[in-house]
């Protein structure tokens, strides 16, 4: 069954068609990747799915419900959680606190509970602290828990964003270039983490530039170029797809020009 179903999704920025009639179905439990050259429209696509951008036309259904016009927080509350290409850490909070914020959707209680602190609330707070530590250990940031999040090196900031997203117990996790800025060793670690997240039952939709990484871990890949989906298939199919090769070679040729 498709957990995410996108039909004819289109985004126009003035004269630019950033996304042009994109169709995509992400099956429940899969590890799905979206690749494409710079400016292909990948982030725009994510932003529409997660409610950060309104689409020009087309429809998005998550878990059988139409989410095309929903707000970001409503979509997040349904279990669709994204990370950002430009990390969006909570400045002024520690590494652990960043992950604790991630527990927001998995917990409850507002002003009244914070003031009165009934026993369920105290228990929940203790669980939140504990869960944050567990998730930090999971991504390998356990030792940095009390550090100011801003002080983390860039690669670790990305890992923190992944841990934070996991804290909300997502059903579909959208990762926008999580390996950007990571060295090869860190990228390998990240690939391992993403596979583990997926094996534990979370559907993952991943944007990535590193084709090597994607063909290694993704079950299925969609390729965007100039706002259009030019191909979709298994990693083996994509590797030999003529249009894909052309799109990537085109980029390299342009880079030499």
């Amino acid at each position, binding site marked *: 069954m498709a957990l995410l179903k996108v039909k004819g999704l289109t985004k126009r920025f003035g004269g630019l068609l950033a996304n042009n009639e994109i169709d995509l179905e992400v099956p429940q439990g899969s590890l799905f990747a979206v690749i494409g050259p710079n400016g292909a429209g990948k982030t725009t696509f994510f932003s529409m799915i*997660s409610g*950060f951008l309104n689409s020009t036309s087309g429809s998005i259904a998550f878990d059988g419900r139409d989410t095309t016009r929903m707000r*970001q*927080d409503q979509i*997040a*509350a349904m279990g669709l*959680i*994204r*990370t*950002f290409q430009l990390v*969006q*850490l*909570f*400045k*002024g*909070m*520690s590494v*652990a*606190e960043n992950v*604790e*914020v*991630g*527990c*927001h*959707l998995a*917990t*409850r*209680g*507002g*002003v009244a*509970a*914070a*003031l009165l*602190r009934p026993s369920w*609330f105290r228990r*929940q*707070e203790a669980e*939140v*602290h504990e869960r944050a*530590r567990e998730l930090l250990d999971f991504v*390998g940031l*356990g*030792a*940095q*828990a*009390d*550090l100011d999040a801003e*002080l983390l090196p860039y690669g670790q900031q990305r890992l923190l*964003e992944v841990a*934070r*997203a996991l804290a*909300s117990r997502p059903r579909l996790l959208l990762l926008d270039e999580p390996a950007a800025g990571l060295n090869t060793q860190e990228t390998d*670690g990240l690939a391992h983490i993403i596979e583990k997240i997926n094996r534990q039952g979370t559907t993952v939709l991943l944007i990535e530039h590193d084709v090597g990484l994607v063909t290694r871990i993704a079950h299925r890949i969609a390729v965007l170029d100039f706002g259009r989906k030019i191909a979709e298939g298994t990693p083996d199919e994509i590797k030999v797809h003529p249009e894909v090769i052309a799109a990537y070679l085109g980029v390299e040729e342009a880079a030499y020009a």
Partner: protein
Amino acid sequence: MTSLAITSPKPAARLDRFSLGLLGAGALLFAAVLVYGGYLLTVMQLAMIYGIFCLGLNFFMGYTGQASFGQNAFACIGGYGSAILCVQYNWEPALALIASMGVAGIAALVIGYPTLRLRGHYLAMATFALGLITYDISVQWTSLTQGYMGYAGIPPLGIGSLTVEDERLKLLCLGGLLLVGFWISQRLRDSRFGRGLRAISGSENGAAALGIRISRFKLIAFVIAGLYASAAGSLFAHTVGFISPEVFGPQMVIVTFTMLYIGGVGTLIGPVVGAIVASLLPEIFRSTGRFQDIAYALVLLLMLIYAPKGLSALGALFRPRKDKGEA
């Protein structure tokens, strides 16, 4: 990757030693003033009231990271609410304070709902206008507010026939109320709700992606700030016994901003420390006669240069740098 086990098993202390030290110093000053007496009692009373105001302001400006230059509007509602209800209608001061807070809370809700869509400079302008409008109303609507004359003879706080008339006792009560306000702010800050607010000031997009309802959280923070401000306005009325439009005019914004920034905006103890320091400093310079204002301004400037994040953030300088875990 080897991770060194330097993480402490217990959750990080809410208040580090430096903050506790600052609070202790504040308590000592408080005690000294209580013993010494004289006009410093009034200075310290006002410091407590401003402290309550700043605790609320800190929710909106500090934790949530939004600009409000119009929080004096809610102090105005509190002050006039207390004055009108007690002087015209003979209400119990404590009841008048609570009723005024109710009115201020509803006003904050109604005003905040459309206004908080604005961001940054626009929000600052809109809130500043709000303060000006309230000031104008308090001047112009003379049948209700008695215009520039203001209200005199506002009764002091008390329960039934037990009223707090003695200046020392007044200061003690205000100190107690400030502590209650502080306690509430600490509880709210260190909770799911408080983390949500602080996440918004860190990154609105990041917070929204994790399911936090930005506009709702901002609105609640605005209402909390309004409730604190209203309580402060009422306490001013009951403590001083007299209010006029000037009390809640634009200079209140400047005074409270100074306090919040001296103490440390967004820190737990900043509002309290800032209110005490900024209230007592001018008194210390009083001996310098006509250079008083210059000396005060100079010290403020030095503080902003050397402690840009406020006095309570200075503790970070003394804290040993934490190991980053790996070389």
